[in-house]
């Protein structure tokens, strides 16, 4: 019974997570997070993933020749 109630409060909390995280509010101070280890772990993981994402896929500059190719292609296609 307690487990079911806990699951229900977890579901309710997790349903609010997209809005909560995007609001930038400090979710770690919320009562449910303070009492629920599972949701605390979930929140921490999602924040860690978002943080790690900023270091992904460094910007790769296109080769200098790309613009020449684009220009040629545009000129080639401009007769239609």
């Amino acid at each position, binding site marked *: 019974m307690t487990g079911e109630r806990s699951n229900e409060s*977890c579901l309710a909390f997790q349903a609010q997570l997209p809005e909560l995280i995007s609001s930038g509010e400090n979710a770690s101070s919320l009562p449910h997070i303070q009492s629920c*280890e*599972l949701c*605390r772990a979930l929140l921490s993981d999602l924040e860690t993933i*978002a943080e*790690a994402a*900023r270091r*992904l896929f460094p910007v790769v500059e296109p080769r200098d020749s790309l613009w020449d190719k684009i220009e040629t292609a*545009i000129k080639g*296609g401009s007769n239609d």
Partner: protein
Amino acid sequence: MVGNVAEAEDLTQEAFLQLHRKIGTFRGDSAFSTWLHRLAINVVLMQLRKKSLSLISLDEAMEPAPEEGPGRSFGAPDLMLTGAIDRLALERAVANLPAGYRLIFILHDVEGFEHNEIAAMLDCSIGNSKSQLHKARLKLRDALRINTELEERA
């Protein structure tokens, strides 16, 4: 989005060609940058479709099939990822996301666009953008936890 420099350059060229062809249809209903981004995203999605990946249109990309969605998050609490995310593992996990999730995750978490900008680019609601991003992160969490489990067993 495509994970390949040469292919990305081909798509850049195609996006400029499309821009040249369609610039006359820009009516100023949105910011030019939003219009251009949407055009470029459609070029990428067209390419993914050609490669027979699991998407047909932007709308379908935004709504992955139910079996592709993340599960409920009642995992074991000892499997926290904090401080242990391997960059390559995360890049692989991102590459394996359904296209719609990947698109929003990259636009928001990697490139830093706001939900209102993404909503305008993808012609969806801000709530939809938030929801899809959340599902993408949940799916990444699942993938990274499986990866961690496999590494621990090895």
